[in-house]
């Protein structure tokens, strides 16, 4: 091997460089020349809103679907694509994610510069609330996931800022375009609510009941503000001026635009609570989570509340304490969660899938397949990835199915979408064609197994730091897992081993934004070394597996 004589550092640069080329932004951008009209001829077309059509033609023109059917005239200026052996589906929609938002949050107003918000002493301090953040203002076309999600068949995401009880407003993004503005399909479609209390004993709220009380107070205040403002506007003289509140104002404005409110509920207990709160708050609510839907789909159906179903199915935590055995209820949950989709479908609940905690887009459709194997009809699964989310977020007029006049968001495959061997051949986003090319993979079989727990050491400006990487290497060299340190933890993506070389990336919240942290290096046996790249900085790191005796002990106790 020639590169073995090349210094380590140089090789790394080459490797990372190659990596960026194959994984990064420019890999599969819209084709040069930019034809405005395409015709996919002689393909199987699955419009979702109508039965599938064999040997059909779809004409895409100026961003929209111009024609679809068996007897369609191909315009003379069209770029004709032979659809033989191909299947055309509507572009898939990820119903709730933060893909496309990875720029650091830059709220314009008060508190923008503060690193650590002051402790909150009550609801009036509006803890962990930034509902004025709007995903539409925070599009980052350079987010690597825009590309990877699109390559997995997702043309559209419902993206929301992350963090806090009112993290901000969700917007619908089409995953294509050159400028941020090209991405926005609709802004302020949803207000996600989280009931994760940020506080503990020093910060209000520090409990679940505190979080519920807080959100309840905010809705009351939002209504009160609207009412008080209207009365004041009519008769300002002689009336005490109602106080302006940024949180309430942003929420009132979003509700005015018919944003739905996303309420968390994954277990039966949480789902029932979400249904109760939805009714109490008199808002147009959507439950997200839904994985114990198999227990109470009819109850959800009776309340006519839609569900966003998390595709990150529950599983045993990695590195669980072997002394703690899961309860029977937990085991049943892990076993049955994927059957929630079919239960919701049968009960008549409107539901859509979302990627949830899945970090590798290639894992999304296999997760849907689990729901299909647990009883969900494949056409219902497809609907939950296309037309249903479009309906839930009020954009079914323009997307979610292959119909004349709708946005030309299409995914073209060489087989059934849910078969593992099927490949996405091309994707149309807003009528632009994106080729999907095979990712260049490191070609050598891995030398050794990187699977296991690694202790990583590195030095940053802040001094010496440590992290743990819990990695799983598949036989083809694919790396997955998690990396955690006191800076936070992230799931591994874009991870590969080739020979003794490896690379993997995690997303970390740094200074308010999601950032890629790229690890590259070499490993041998139970030690590794290499470099970490994050936010333009590079640090060296070393890593080691804890002594085998400890690992054996942990294993033996099971």
């Amino acid at each position: 091997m020639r590169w073995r004589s090349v210094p380590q550092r140089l090789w790394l640069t080459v490797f990372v460089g190659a990596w960026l080329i194959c994984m990064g932004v420019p890999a599969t951008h819209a084709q040069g020349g930019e034809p405005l009209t395409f015709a996919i001829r002689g393909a199987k077309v699955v419009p979702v809103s109508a039965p599938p059509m064999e040997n059909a033609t779809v004409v895409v023109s100026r961003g929209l679907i111009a024609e679809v059917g068996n007897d369609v005239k191909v315009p003379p200026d069209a770029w004709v694509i032979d659809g033989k052996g191909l299947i055309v589906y509507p572009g898939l929609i990820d119903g709730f994610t933060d893909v496309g938002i990875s720029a650091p949050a830059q709220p314009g107003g008060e508190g923008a510069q503060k690193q650590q918000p002051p402790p909150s002493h009550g609801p009036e301090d509006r803890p962990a609330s930034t509902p004025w953040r709007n995903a539409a203002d925070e599009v980052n076309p350079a987010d690597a996931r825009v590309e990877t999600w699109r390559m997995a068949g997702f043309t559209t995401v419902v993206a929301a800022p992350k963090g806090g009880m009112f993290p901000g407003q969700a917007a619908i993004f089409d995953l294509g375009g050159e400028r941020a503005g090209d991405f926005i399909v609709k802004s302020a479609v949803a207000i996600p609510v989280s009931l994760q209390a940020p506080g503990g004993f020093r910060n209000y709220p520090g409990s679940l009941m505190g979080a519920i009380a807080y959100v309840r107070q905010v809705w009351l205040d939002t209504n009160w503000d609207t009412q008080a403002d209207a009365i004041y506007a009519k008769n300002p003289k002689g009336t005490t001026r109602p106080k302006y509140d940024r949180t309430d104002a942003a929420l009132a404005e979003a509700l005015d635009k018919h944003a739905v409110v996303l309420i968390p509920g994954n277990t039966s207990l949480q789902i029932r609570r979400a249904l109760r709160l939805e009714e109490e708050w008199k808002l147009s609510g959507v439950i997200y989570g839904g994985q114990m839907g198999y227990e109470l789909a009819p109850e959800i159906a009776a309340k006519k509340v839609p569900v966003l179903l998390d595709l990150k199915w529950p599983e045993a935590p990695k590195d669980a304490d072997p002394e703690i055995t899961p309860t029977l209820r937990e085991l049943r949950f892990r076993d049955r969660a994927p059957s929630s989709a079919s239960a919701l479908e049968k009960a008549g609940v409107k539901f859509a899938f979302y990627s949830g905690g899945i970090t590798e887009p290639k894992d999304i459709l296999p997760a849907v397949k689990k729901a299909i194997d647990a009883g969900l009809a494949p056409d219902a699964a497809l609907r939950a990835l296309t037309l249903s989310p479009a309906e839930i977020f009020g954009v079914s007029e323009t997307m979610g199915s292959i119909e004349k006049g709708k946005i030309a968001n299409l995914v073209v495959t060489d087989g059934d979408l849910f078969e593992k061997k099927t490949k996405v051949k091309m994707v149309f986003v807003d009528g632009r064609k994106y080729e999907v090319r095979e990712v260049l993979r490191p070609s050598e079989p891995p030398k050794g197994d990187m699977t296991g727990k690694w202790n990583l050491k590195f030095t940053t400006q802040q001094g010496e730091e440590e992290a743990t990487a819990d990695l799983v290497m598949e036989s083809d060299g694919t790396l997955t897992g998690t990396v955690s340190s006191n800076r936070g933890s992230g799931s591994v993506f874009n991870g590969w081993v080739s020979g003794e070389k490896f690379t993997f990336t995690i997303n970390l919240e740094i200074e308010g934004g999601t950032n890629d942290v790229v690890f590259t290096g070499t490993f041998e046996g139970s030690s590794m070394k290499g470099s970490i790249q994050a936010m333009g900085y590079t640090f060296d790191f070393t890593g080691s597996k804890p002594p085998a005796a400890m690992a054996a002990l942990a294993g033996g106790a099971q």
Partner: protein
Amino acid sequence: MKITAKTCWLLAGVCAASLSVSPAKEKSAGFAADAPSPVILIRNATILTVSHGTIDKGDVLIRNGKIAAIGGNLKAPDDAQVIDGTGQFVSPGIIDCHSHIAIDGNVNEGSVSVSSMVNIADVIDSDDISIYRDLAGGVTTANILHGSANPIGGQTIVIKLRWGQPASRLPFEGALPGIKFALGENPKRSNFRVPGAQERYPATRMGVEETIRAAFTEARDYKKAWDEYNKRLAAGEKNLIPPRRDLKLDPLVEVLEGKRYVHAHCYREDEILMLLRVAKEFGFHVQTLQHVLEGYKVADEIAAAGTGASTFSDWWAYKVEAYDAIPYNAALMTQRGVIVSINSDDAAEATHLNQEAAKSMLYGRMSHDEALKMVTINPAIQLGIDKRVGSIDVGKDADLVIYNHDPLSAYAVVQKTLIDGRVYFDREKDIASRPALEKEKKELEEKLAKKPEPEKKAGEKKPEEKKTGEKKPEDKPKPPQAQLGQGGAQ
């Protein structure tokens, strides 16, 4: 809240529940909310009515969830289920006046000194295995309280332990809601300080009093603002901006209006008297004093205020303010005319409240019947639910416990626990159900453990093998209501 849990009372009756899988829950989960409850006749048992003595060889007839008849040789209707009570004892369901079970998330909203905006009712966890363990200890009703980190804590709720029912079906219908107050070391955080960390006000007993006064002064002003607004609105004034709803003050106004009970955690005589004085001044009633370990020193004052006392049998010295506790507290307060109950404050303690009550027969020479009252009718009176529960009387809810011995005996083990005339715990069925549940657990463990293997080997070539879809006859979806507690089934 106490820090330590007693471990010396793990008796046979508790062990029945320690496996913590419940056939009863699976079954009860199937109760349609409005399905008629069965007609049940408990025959030939010793009936401890609490309200009117003990009936030897008596029968209890249950219909529509209520006690329909009590006496000897009652005729069983044809459709009745007959429970043979020969040699067994029937007592009213045990009522725990101070419990923290079945709460999802933190028991304390400890960030603020007045956390009255939070409500335990929002976070009732109907899946908490402690509910089932309580049932196995004969508890049928519990007062679920917010923790004691704040002078004025969160809103509280009385629930019936209807295991298997959704959280919305647990609240005791018609029971007045409450609010937790706390005095002394917990709200002033004296045992929980982190060196260097900023302290939360108040840090002294003086500050605790001031916090309560300030909150009620604020609540009074708030109420006044609303009264005035409503008056002006009624007078036809236009363009009025209503006062802003404040979820922190709403429940305090309810306290002032007598629509919400105050349950006050306290230890020392001085703070007890302080609260009774503040309550008098602001015109509200303290419904119960909780723990109240120095209550025996000021029993007359407590009795005069018409305030109940809910205490421990013999649990003390876990912090400085608990040093002056004596096991005679319950008996002494009872002698001075205070309504006294014995509570658990702890999930394990709750499973043997009958024996906790019995200790006062030793300490203070309390009579058998007086002792039993402390976990039945007395807490019912304290919670304002004595018209419904707390004794075995015709017309009351059929919340009953069947024991193999007198419940105040150390040998007593709960055989069945009924709520609203339905069996929610059945020791025999519990034991019988264990092998099947253990088998299911083992099978699931094996099935789920196998899963990642084919995926790994298959790589890119083979479609992923599907385990979830394979339906063996025995893994038909069942409502997974039962739960194995940590360490259970081993």
